């Protein structure tokens, strides 16, 4: 058994934001084993106070450069809930296609750029350009497709402009939608190759199981990315649904000394959100092509290995492409037209949720009679995963010690675990830092 370990990973790489891993083991005794989140709170809830309802999503969209679509959709949906707005079937379908684009875009980035280097034994994606050039080229092709896919529906993928309270401010033409359909169909070989690549790398995914609670949106008609009820599934398959308005009863936020981000828990000591949680909750609602991908990748519900979250993301990419093709066909059959925005029928409190790449996202707002925001609340999925990551650490570290794992190997295993959750701790500052060489 490994007796002495000192791991201090300050600002873990290949995650979005800043998080630290600290493990101290002396003479076999675990003195410290922590996933630490030192990011400063950003107080978006205070930024929306005093703003007109038409401005709120513009602000909250800026919470994240990756999940900007999700934050826009959650924000607009919550505002529509508060204002008594029911959008049209066309608007909902367009938003669902947009949601799929964001999910696929983020998952492609995570699987290919952030996780694949671990599975291929490389420090970053750059060495893979030499050793796996076709894979990197495919990653960039898929990334570009997702960008074009989202931009067509959202006006732009990062901080979309078309999604507004009451519907869609702009809609694509029939010709543009037909072209998008052709692009998605043309990407099918890349999807199949992605599944093959991940299947080939899958033996390098650590074997680790820690049953936990999995929470995500769910409904009876689709996979539950854009809408649904909150659903919890326990390791024994027991499911329970909650109205979205009761999200505080599910999230139960609390603070811990090691993290500036709040922790959450529901039925068990922690729960997981994200692609694996959605897969475990909603497997039956996946399109057949995605179910076949899951089978090829050895993923079955209820999977309790958190490292498999990336595999679930790949399954979701397949689902998003094929479900978007279905939605586009329905839009083309009905004919797409610019519709007037639905106007408010009341003012009050609104609570809504969407699934973003990293899990279930909640937005809540209060509006006065003039449509001015009086307060807001936002619970992001990464915060809902911090507690689960810590509980994974609590089980994984003793297992690694018992298996005589060396310090470097243990450090990599813990880093890979955190990366598997695809945490988006903060879309913080990102400015250039350079020195001139000539």
């Amino acid at each position, binding site marked *: 058994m490994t007796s002495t370990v000192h791991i201090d990973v300050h*600002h873990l*790489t*290949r*995650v*979005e*934001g800043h998080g630290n891993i600290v493990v101290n083991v002396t003479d076999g005794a675990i003195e410290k084993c922590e996933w630490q989140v030192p990011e*400063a709170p*950003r*107080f978006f809830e205070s*930024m929306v106070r005093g703003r007109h309802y038409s401005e709120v999503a513009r*602000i909250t969209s*800026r919470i994240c*450069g*990756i999940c*900007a679509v999700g934050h826009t959709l959650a924000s607009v949906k919550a505002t529509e809930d508060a204002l008594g707005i029911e959008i049209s079937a066309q608007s909902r379908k367009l938003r669902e296609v947009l949601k799929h684009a964001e999910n696929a875009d983020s998952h492609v*980035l995570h699987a290919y*750029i*952030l996780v694949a280097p671990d599975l291929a034994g490389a*420090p*970053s*994606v*750059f060495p893979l*350009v*030499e050793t796996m*050039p076709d894979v*990197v*080229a495919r990653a*960039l092709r898929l*990334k*570009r497709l997702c*960008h*074009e896919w989202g931009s067509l529906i959202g006006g*732009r*993928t*990062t*901080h979309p402009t078309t999604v507004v309270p009451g519907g869609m401010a702009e809609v694509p033409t029939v010709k543009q939608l037909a072209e998008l359909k052709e692009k998605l169909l043309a990407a099918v070989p890349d999807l199949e190759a992605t599944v093959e690549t991940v299947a080939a790398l899958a033996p390098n995914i650590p074997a680790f199981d820690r049953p936990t609670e999995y929470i995500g949106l769910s409904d009876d008609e689709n996979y539950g990315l854009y809408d649904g009820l909150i659903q919890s599934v326990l390791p024994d398959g027991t499911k329970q649904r909650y109205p979205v308005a009761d999200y505080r009863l599910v999230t139960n936020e609390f603070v811990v000394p090691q993290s500036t981000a709040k922790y959450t828990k529901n039925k068990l000591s922690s729960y997981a959100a994200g692609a694996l949680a959605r897969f475990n909750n909603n497997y039956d609602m996946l399109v057949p092509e995605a179910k076949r991908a899951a089978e090829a990748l050895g993923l079955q519900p209820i999977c309790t290995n958190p490292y498999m979250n990336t595999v679930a993301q790949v399954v979701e990419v397949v689902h998003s492409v094929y479900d978007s093709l279905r939605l586009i066909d329905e839009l083309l059959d009905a004919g797409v037209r610019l519709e007037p925005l639905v106007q408010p029928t009341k003012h009050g409190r609104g609570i809504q949720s969407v699934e973003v790449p990293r899990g279930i996202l909640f937005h809540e707002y209060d509006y006065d009679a003039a449509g001015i925001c009086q307060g807001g609340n936002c619970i992001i999925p990464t915060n809902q995963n911090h507690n689960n990551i810590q509980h994974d650490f609590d089980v994984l570290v003793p297992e690694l010690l018992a298996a005589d794992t060396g310090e470097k190997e243990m450090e990599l295993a813990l880093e890979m675990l955190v990366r598997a959750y695809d945490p*988006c701790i*903060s*879309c*913080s*500052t*990102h*400015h*250039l*830092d*350079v*020195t*001139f*060489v*000539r």
Partner: protein
Amino acid sequence: MRYLIGLGNYLAGDDGVGVHVVEHVVAHGLERGFTAVDLATNALNMVSYLGSETEAVLVIDAAHLGLEPGEFRIFAPDEVETQKELAGFSTHEGDPLKVLELARTAGYAIPPFAVMGIEPHGVEHGSPLSESLRARLPEYAAAAIEHLAGL
């Protein structure tokens, strides 16, 4: 097509100056002969604007250049060395120089490309663009447009 791309976090002080310049260009109808793009913090999407069909790209971003806050410099990627960790490649760290390097090594045809780096006062979350940089947005826009036209 020519692209003027703004990068940065809109809600992190001067980190978002690139996005503010793009907004200024669009709001004042200066988008002629090129397309202005707000990529926010998602620099990896820059690959969508690289390729043989692209004539030129100018990226505007906050940059620690050792200049006085508000001063700027337009440079080619090969004039500088990035000080960011290679292993830290992520959307969060969205370094356009690293994205360019990745695209180049992956075989993308890289068009004429330049970066306009603007020295920030501060990049704190929740703070607005500093007044001194805001006052110079027309100057930044004019310089960027002129340089892009000559690339």
